[in-house]
């Protein structure tokens, strides 16, 4: 029994922490977020140079051969730094599909430049009508001789405005929520018939609504088997659910630490407000929420590493926990900061917004609890 990180994981943690401390303060983050791209190309280059974009990929694919624990190490620290660079969209989502389903040509054309930071990519996992059901796909891909013609809409495509490669799940057969009949396509963003409407999100990131109108592709664009893309999609979304949860744990800890520090420096009635029991107990609850979430995150990291049925169960549990505990910690931080927590100027408000966005991504607390309530697993 061992809950510690190994040497490589500690080095990884250390290098990210140093980068955040030295080069990624809140002002820098705000600058990158508000820039035209919505992130810093410079920073992204650094991520690639330091090997962080290579973490989950096999050595054969040019990666670091990291597992869920390594991903947890990275994401928790990106959370602590409130990083806006598109790590989730590129490495976890698009990368997750390509490493699982990509053939050698696709890996060399798409995955290698993604890992080296030269290609921006994303996965369009959501459709406007589907809510959190990733199998609910109305976008169609109809075979036309040697090619496919795609029509449909994708919503909340992270990094959609900057991505050069879009990975689009489309239905080649079956009914709208059928797990069978889903095919994954890799599409260049500048292909005729692709229209992209990019927008800012509440958490200082970027997403896009994408319309696909008679987009014509050759069979070379198919990632994996025609009609057999669901497994790859599901595993990748499970990865992403785990990843944003770890990011949330990082954010929750920062919020708790900052709130505690703030109450010690804020004086009212002639004393620091940290001396008030009503506030102390609320901060203890924030601390409990952080520790409980960390415990579930560690369980999930180990369960996902093991694989099997417990793995899905642990990820549902984790995202449910994050939904409940994250909301609580975020709202409490703002309440205890008082008026200052309401201002755009304070980093606390921005951590709160990112946390809130995460609670709504890849299934909210209710959605995951429903999965747990319907399964017999202990």
């Amino acid at each position, binding site marked *: *029994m061992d809950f510690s990180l190994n040497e490589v994981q500690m080095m990884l943690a250390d290098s990210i922490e140093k980068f955040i401390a030295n080069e990624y303060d809140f002002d820098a983050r705000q600058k990158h977020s508000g820039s035209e791209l919505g992130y810093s190309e410079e920073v992204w280059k650094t991520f690639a140079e330091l090997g962080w974009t290579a973490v989950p990929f096999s050595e054969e694919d040019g990666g670091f051969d990291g597992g869920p624990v390594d991903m947890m190490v990275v994401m928790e620290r990106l959370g602590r730094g409130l990083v806006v660079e598109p790590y989730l969209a590129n490495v976890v989502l698009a990368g997750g599909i390509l490493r699982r389903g990509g053939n050698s040509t696709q890996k060399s054309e798409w995955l290698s430049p993604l890992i080296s930071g030269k290609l921006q990519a994303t996965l369009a996992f959501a459709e406007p009508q589907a809510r959190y059901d990733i199998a609910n796909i109305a976008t169609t891909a109809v075979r036309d001789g040697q090619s496919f013609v795609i029509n449909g809409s994708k919503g909340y495509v992270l990094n959609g405005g900057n991505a050069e490669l879009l990975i689009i799940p489309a239905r080649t057969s079956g009914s709208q929520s059928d797990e069978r009949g889903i095919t994954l396509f890799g599409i260049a963003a500048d292909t005729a018939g692709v229209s992209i409407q990019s927008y800012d999100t509440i958490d200082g990131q970027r997403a896009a609504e994408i319309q696909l109108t008679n987009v014509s592709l050759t069979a070379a664009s198919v990632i994996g088997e025609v009609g057999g893309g669901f497994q790859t999609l599901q595993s990748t979304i499970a990865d992403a659910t785990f990843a944003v949860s770890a990011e949330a744990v990082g954010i929750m800890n920062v919020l708790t630490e900052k709130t505690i520090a703030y109450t*010690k420096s804020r004086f009212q009635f002639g004393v620091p407000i940290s001396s008030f029991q009503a506030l102390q107990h609320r901060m203890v609850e924030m601390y409990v929420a952080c520790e409980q979430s960390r*415990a*579930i995150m*560690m369980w999930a990291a180990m369960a996902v590493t093991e694989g099997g049925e417990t793995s899905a169960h642990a990820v549902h549990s984790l995202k*449910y*926990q994050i939904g409940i505990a994250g909301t609580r910690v975020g709202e409490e931080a703002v309440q205890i900061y008082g008026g200052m927590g309401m201002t755009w100027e304070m980093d606390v408000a921005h951590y709160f917004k990112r946390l809130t966005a995460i609670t709504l991504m890849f299934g909210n607390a209710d959605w995951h609890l429903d999965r747990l309530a*319907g399964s017999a697993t*202990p």
Partner: protein
Amino acid sequence: MNVTFTTAENEFRSEVRKYFKEEFPQDVLEKQRKAIPLTREDTVRWHKNIYRKGWAAPSWPVEYGGTGWSSVQKYIFADEQARASAPAFLPFGISMVGPIIYTFGNDEQKKRFLPDILEFNTWWCQGYSEPGAGSDLASLKLRADLEGDHYVLNGTKTWTTLGQYADWIFCLARTNSDVARRQEGISFVLVNMKQPGVSVKPIVLLDGEHEVNEIHFDNVQVPVKNLVGEEGKGWTYGKVLLQHERATITGVANLKYMLSRLCSLCAKSIKGAEPLSDDRTFMRKVAAAKVEFKALEYTELRTLASVASGKAPGPESSILKIVGTELRQRIDSLYLEASGYYALPYVRDQYDSTYPEEDRVGEGSETNAALVYFNDRKVSIYGGSNEIQRNIIAKHVLGL
């Protein structure tokens, strides 16, 4: 990062499981499964059984009769104990006064008291709380006045769990009132209850059970040789004891099996109705409790792994009492809800062997669900109320 057990640890688990299945008194397990209170005789008998096995004191040093188990072995033992529905050790001797005596007592006291605690020849109870001293324990008023080679005790202790069965009581008593801080001038004394001046008055709790007592001391003579450690240092010793108490209250292992019993009850079709396990609204509450349990379990495992690698338990261990007791109460309330009408009959002693079969009402553990629910309100109150626990975390962990 992993939570796998070694081959030796797995073999140890099998050995413990076999013990509870084959050597432990099975009638005691049966009562526990039905949530029927144990008699004094039951409690003495199973403790003596475990003593004969050599496992009476998992946490004590080997030189005093402890098992010498690693923290992982202790965890496995507690897990198997709960899995078998075996009762937890009565804490007053083994977890509370024993460690105080071997840590702060003299050689004579160790020789005199420890073997009987181990073999369960003496039943101990705890004299901490007083009518005027609950959360504010340092305001205690039991007086111990030195007269020659005796202290003379006058005052009252309360909430004394199973004091009606006890032979001895360990007390925090005031030996000096003229002190700068109230925490000073308190001493830790061991008192034989079978002597003039000690009277035990029952307090019946809301579940109708006589579990706790008020103990009156009227000019009770206590020889000076029964003072543990230094006079006036009792508060320091007592605080150490409270930490032991908090660690034993959590009962993480037990919660796992409470949850599994709850799930079995849900799966049962009660009196022709659809099983509750088909009711999504209810099962969502059960699922949420399971997630909370998993978090608690892994917080405990983290603490355990940290201790096993020779480090002190991390600050995360401070949340165990709060989370463990509040989750326990939540599971109790789900069990109550799941039991429906059959939580309501209040038929005392109906599981005694002498009780006429035809007069029994209901069946199985749901008939005790309400009593367990009511009785367990205590867990967030005793051992330092959960509000006091939050004060402690605020001060010592968060530095507020």
